């Protein structure tokens, strides 16, 4: 065991011992030294140094580390399919150093600049020579390789940017999650989960809120007026629902407003109650009419009943769950979220209750 450790230590030391002043090992040790000094500079009881010293020393440590790794990969190339990957390893470190350090972390910028920074690192030795200084490479093969490498890295950058762009779409238009990415030539198919329908569900919840706010304790004519207005002008109701949701999002969570408001069609469908002594049954539906797989997008709905009772004032009761239809034309595609909650059989029965009024 002791011999094993000894030989391990010897080979490690043999590798890390600077062979000359100009070697990657020197740079590595400098990096380590700078890091140690930075740790010392941060500790308040030992040295009352300002924070700036710590930052400068950390930067030095990073720079020496980058130099060491760049040097090491130049001396001992890491090859994959004949291509030296060293510059891309060094480039990753440079990107981390520039964009993902300390308090400000910009992962997007770091990933997007990675290919181009790596290409610059890879091209650097071709242009700069210790003896001759800067010169454009004269060999045809070198020139061709440089052009191809630059172009391939530009293509990588395009792919990365495109990846960020589609994820940006999914953030701005969250209703897209509700459609599985079937048949796409761009992204992988993924199974739809319960949470993918959250946007539609939030909208239906807000519709329910507004229904309750506007009709509770109102007399029958006022309730009918409100329901009729919603049917005549569904866009006004949609704006009201969407604006409330957006204000809640911007004010409470300080997040940007969703942009898929116009991709939802809100419907309030009034019918005779089928299973209850109540006076009205109102179906609140949010239908996705944005980018979708089939002509009929997914739909979220909840059924509420309005009962006027003996006091002749409306009381609203929403007995069922919020139901999601991945295909509104097919009642079997219903997804009732929430585990352990009993499904109201009566609600299932009148899933496609004929809308009247």
């Amino acid at each position, binding site marked *: 065991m002791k011999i094993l450790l000894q030989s391990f230590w010897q080979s490690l030391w043999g590798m890390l011992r600077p062979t000359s002043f100009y070697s990657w090992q020197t740079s590595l040790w400098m990096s380590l030294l700078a890091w140690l000094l930075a740790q010392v500079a941060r500790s308040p009881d030992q040295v009352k140094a300002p924070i700036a010293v710590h930052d400068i020393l950390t930067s030095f440590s990073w720079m020496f580390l980058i130099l060491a790794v760049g040097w090491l990969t130049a001396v001992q190339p890491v090859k994959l399919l004949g291509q030296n990957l060293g510059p891309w390893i060094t480039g990753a470190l440079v990107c981390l150093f520039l964009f993902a350090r300390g308090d400000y972390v910009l992962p997007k910028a770091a990933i997007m600049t990675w290919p181009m920074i790596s290409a610059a690192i890879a091209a650097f030795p071709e242009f700069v020579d210790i003896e001759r200084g800067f010169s454009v490479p004269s060999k045809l093969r070198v020139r061709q390789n440089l052009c191809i490498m630059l172009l*391939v890295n530009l293509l990588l950058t*395009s*792919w990365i940017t495109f990846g960020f762009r*589609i*994820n940006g779409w999914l953030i701005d*238009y969250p209703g897209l*999650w509700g459609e599985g*990415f079937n048949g796409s030539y761009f992204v992988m198919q993924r199974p739809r989960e319960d949470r993918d329908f959250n946007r539609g569900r939030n909208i239906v919840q807000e519709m329910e809120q507004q229904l309750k706010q506007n009709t509770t304790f109102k007399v029958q004519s006022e309730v009918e007026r409100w329901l009729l207005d919603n049917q005549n002008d569904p866009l006004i109701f949609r704006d009201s629902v969407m604006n409330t949701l957006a204000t809640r999002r911007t004010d409470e969570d300080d997040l940007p407003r969703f942009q898929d408001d116009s991709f939802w069609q809100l419907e309030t469908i009034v019918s005779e109650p089928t299973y209850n002594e109540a006076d009205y049954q109102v179906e609140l539906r949010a239908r996705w009419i944005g980018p979708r797989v089939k002509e009929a997008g997914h739909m979220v709905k909840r059924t509420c009943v309005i009962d006027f009772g003996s006091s002749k004032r409306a009381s609203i009761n929403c007995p069922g769950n919020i139901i999601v239809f991945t295909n509104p034309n097919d009642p079997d595609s219903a997804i009732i979220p929430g585990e352990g909650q009993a499904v109201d059989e009566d609600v299932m029965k009148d899933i496609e209750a004929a809308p009247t009024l």
Partner: protein
Amino acid sequence: MPTLELVLPLRAIVLQALFLTVAVAIEAVVFQRQFGISKSGSVIYSFAVNLVSTVIGWSIFLAVEPFLPDDWRMAAMSFVFFNQVFGNLDISVIAPVLAFCTFLGTLFLELQAMNFFIRIWSPETPPQQHDTTRIKFDRLSRYRSSETSRYRSSALLRANGYSYGAILLMLLVLQRASFL
């Protein structure tokens, strides 16, 4: 709407790599025959030229996308996520026009790129354009001797025609396969 789930465009990357490989292979053969250059030289030329047009195409899309009207963005999103185009745009008109414009644009870009690469990789090249100023007296022979650049564009047209045809065929097969 999951907050921390990244959707990676892996299929787009794989398909584009595949189409690029096919296009490079086909166009390299055409260049090799038309220009009479070495195998490796023709592969490098067609690779570089195709990469230029691909990268510029991506850049145009990525630069223009934020300014698209909602209809167009909806069409783009439908196409990317669902391979479908719904909305107010009449796709049967737009798709052929767009495809034709892409083809012409590709051709133009590749011609420019090829001229550029011939200039910066001066040795091993497709036939050089002759110096027409030396032929002083005969207009006809001067005209003929300047044909090389036209020859270049007709070779590119042919190469692009073949590679576009091959990619279209592959897309049709893919479409059919995804229906099965």
